[in-house]
């Protein structure tokens, strides 16, 4: 294990949709956070939140084929998702920061959705937090990541260890070559630093309107977006939509990396958010293919990680022809906790169809 860098790093807020930083501290940060009231009448869709946030980074460490950036911001509300239910999580009185261990596959930049990072925090050798498994989350400024609000007893330096297990079986190429990994960081928790992080109110007239905050670009940390449809491998068959989610469909002639036999094809569906093109992991998807009214495939579209397709869902099929009808059924919405602006979206996802 090697610590490549350890420096405070202020992530900039997205360029569009927000002005300068003047007057950005619209709240006082003491032990927790005072977030603005939620937008009234939130649409059941991706909407612009009340504010955008900056974040800090404790460093980037690589191990086992992965890299990990320990990023953090002030604590904030989010929503957990279980099935079709969302539950709002308020900031606790003792929450010190929102901790986000961002783990990605070093070679491809894919943020794996099949491993859940674990976090241990110590101070002077004494355990402060252990066995914390942050939630998989979706945020407009970060896309898919893991995070949770964390209590720390006082300001000062903490040792934070992030670990991930070996990856799952549904990976291709170099993504399949990772090992169990551990990353150690020193995090200097200072309220003054958090206070200085960008906090930008979104103009009231824009809050709650359809749209999304711009993703945050951070030096050294890849922002994982779903490939643009032109960049997807195979024969791109088109895009269909379901409740704000976009599904780009492509077919590959070679299904062998995905467990198929020679001569079989691969049907890949790449669901992504509108505006920011973030992939949507942790869905249960099914697909039906039919030709001239006859069903040629009916089954699960399973989640895979692939260097070129990124996080996507696919199935091995016996061949696809132009004109085939594809129906994509969402059996469960993405089981991802949501940051503001995503909590009402991607929950009611009707079946989507596409003529290939």
């Amino acid at each position: 294990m090697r610590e490549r860098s350890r420096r405070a790093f202020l992530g900039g807020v997205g360029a569009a949709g927000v002005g300068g930083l003047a007057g950005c501290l619209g709240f006082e940060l003491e032990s927790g956070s005072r977030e603005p009231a939620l937008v009234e009448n939130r649409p059941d869709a991706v909407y612009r939140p009340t504010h955008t946030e900056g974040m800090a980074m404790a460093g980037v460490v690589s191990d086992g084929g992965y890299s990990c950036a320990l990023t953090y911001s002030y604590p904030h509300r989010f929503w957990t998702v279980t099935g079709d239910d969302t539950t709002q999580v308020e900031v606790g009185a003792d929450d010190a920061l929102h901790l986000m261990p961002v783990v990605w596959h070093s070679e491809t930049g894919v943020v794996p959705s099949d491993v859940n990072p674990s976090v241990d925090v110590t101070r002077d050798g004494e355990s402060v937090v252990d066995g914390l498994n942050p939630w998989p989350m979706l945020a407009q400024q970060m896309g898919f990541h893991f995070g949770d609000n964390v209590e720390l007893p006082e300001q000062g330096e903490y040792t934070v260890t992030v670990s991930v297990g070996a990856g799952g079986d549904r990976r291709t190429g170099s993504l399949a070559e990772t090992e169990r990994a551990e990353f150690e960081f020193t995090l200097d928790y200072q309220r003054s630093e958090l206070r200085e992080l960008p906090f930008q109110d979104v103009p009231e007239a824009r809050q709650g309107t359809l749209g999304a905050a711009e993703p945050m670009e951070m030096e050294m940390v890849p922002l994982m977006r779903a490939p643009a449809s032109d960049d997807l491998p195979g024969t791109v068959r088109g895009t269909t939509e379901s409740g704000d989610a976009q599904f780009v469909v492509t077919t590959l002639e070679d299904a062998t990396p995905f467990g198929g036999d020679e001569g079989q094809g691969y049907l890949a569906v790449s669901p992504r958010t509108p505006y920011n093109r973030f992939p949507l992991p942790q869905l249960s998807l099914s697909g039906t293919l039919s030709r001239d009214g006859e069903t040629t495939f009916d089954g699960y579209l399973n989640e895979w990680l692939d260097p070129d397709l990124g996080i996507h869902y696919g199935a091995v099929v016996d061949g696809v022809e132009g004109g085939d009808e594809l129906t994509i059924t969402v059996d469960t919405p993405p089981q991802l906790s949501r940051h503001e602006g995503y909590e009402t979206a991607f929950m009611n996802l009707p079946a989507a169809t596409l003529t290939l």
Partner: protein
Amino acid sequence: MSDSHGIDRRAFVKSAVAIGGAAALSACLDRGTEIDVPRGPEDPTAAFPERQHAWNAALPTTDAGNNHHPRHRVLLALDYGEGTPTEAERETVEAALAGVERAYERSAAGLLLTISYSPYYFDRFDADLPESVDLPEPRALSAFEDPAADDADAIVHLASDHGEVVMGAEEALKGELDELNGVPQPDAALTDAFSVRERRTGFIGDGLPAENQDVSGVPDDGPVPEDAPLYMGFESAFEGNQPTEDRVTIREGPFAGGTTQQLSTLTLNLTQWYEQDTREQRVSKMFCPHHAANNVVEDAGENLGTDPRMDDCGDPMETARSEGVVGHSQKMVDVREDDAPIILRRDFDSTDGDRAGVHFLSLQRTISDFVTTREAMNGEEIDSDSAVGQRTNNGILQYITTVRRGNFLVPPRSLRALPPARPDADVAEVAERAEVADA
């Protein structure tokens, strides 16, 4: 005695068990209420079953019809050191164990105990354990755990409803007491043959987790329900969710009548569980989504009686696909035989290290039975084929970390004192030598 006094005293006794030692014991005894526990028999070996783990007959049944679990526990992790045991050491160990058995009756109010041995202990013998004993060294049982190996040579498990009893037995086994419950104790002590590497303590039963929730891993506002038997707030060892002792007993070979014991040290992080999950989410994750949607579980689940009604939960994969969450108990249904699990749970909660934890102790005929059960709990296929994550919405995996795993053999009583790896061979060898001597 007022209720609050009762709770004060209970908390005090539990703390004393956690602290341990002669001073804690005497403080406990000095503090009033003399406990009145009947003594054990003069000759425990003649009176007690060959199966050390045959506790059920000695345990009362709860109002809900489940076996009561003794409320206070001590696990003594022992090291034997180098070399192989002598007959004298075996006699010493047996004498020490019999000493405490004479002091307290064999019951939940009195004392229940087992002694078990690890693969590291058996490594010292030239012969391997017989094939009828499945006792591999412990290993990680999921892609996301990295446990330490529990390589103590032996574990003594002491259980009683009275903290004073487990503490007293512990002190006597260490040779610290001349008399226990009015019964003279032998000079022999476990510490003549072993050194105590570590003492682990814990508790189970209504009220105890709530009274002991001021530890790391539990939010500060005291969220553990007052009557809950375990930190996570629910009953877990329902009678209908436990196999018989027969099912977990080794049937063949020289260790027939014994069992294997899997012991993991788990830490709990219940901040998310109590502060971020709703009760409905908790019921979904502990039992199944059906139980959450239909309000099947009241409070800790006493209303379920002996049966957690797993048949109503549906197929775990189907639930995961359609609900995005799968229950912990629900995942275990598939590993049942004759409608019962294949591991017998004797686990309990702990505040060791001032953090909320579980000593997950289970008995099964083979360690493979435990591995099968744990693999079902991992739900890897469910994770892979549905919206359920590696940990998120995957039962209770998000809240539990396995920090240590150990496998042990609980030999039958007649072999409980420093057993050889191949008692049958030894017996045959001894018999052979005897014949040679006779000739």
